[in-house]
């Protein structure tokens, strides 16, 4: 029962992240949707798989959760910095806090 609830919550967040990746207007807002939603969705889904199977599969699933939770914000930060330095800017909003630092 708990495993079904966890896998359903994870699936919902994965689908919401993908819809946000389609619908939002801008690269940084798309990253805001995609990175956080897919991290939480994959963590919930793998936790549900660990609860469902148990044993050595649970250990491996928790190891994947650690990799995803550590690695996904790091790669998103690297892509955001690279995209800002190559000239991508936000479309909505006019305040840019990094302009003095980079120019």
């Amino acid at each position: 029962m708990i495993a079904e609830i966890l896998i359903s919550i994870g699936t919902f967040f994965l689908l919401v992240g993908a819809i946000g990746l389609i619908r939002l207007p801008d690269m940084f807002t798309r990253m805001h949707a995609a990175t956080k939603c897919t991290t939480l969705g994959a963590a919930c889904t793998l936790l549900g798989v660990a609860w469902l199977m148990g044993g050595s599969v649970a250990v491996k699933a928790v190891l994947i959760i650690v990799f995803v939770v550590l690695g996904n914000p790091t790669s998103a930060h690297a892509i955001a910095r690279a995209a800002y330095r190559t000239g991508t800017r936000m479309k909505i909003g006019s305040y840019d806090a990094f302009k003095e630092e980079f120019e």
Partner: protein
Amino acid sequence: MIELSFLPTVVTIITIAFLLSFFRIIKGPTAGDRFIALDAATTITTALLALLGVMYERMWLIDVAIIYALLSFIAIIAIARYLEGGL
């Protein structure tokens, strides 16, 4: 021992999410859009591999998911360094 009734629906929904992010990889206007969509697609695929392993009772698929998560992290870091011009 595992109730398989709801797993095909869940796998179908996650596959639809993967195809939506793949649409952004094809269509995205800048390079950053494509790489963000690629990052989301690899994370979705990690969860999908674990669920497919439970659904078909092939437990070696979760080992594939471990290697997939590590390789996608290294690939995204390398792509970001390349995009920045420092590779």
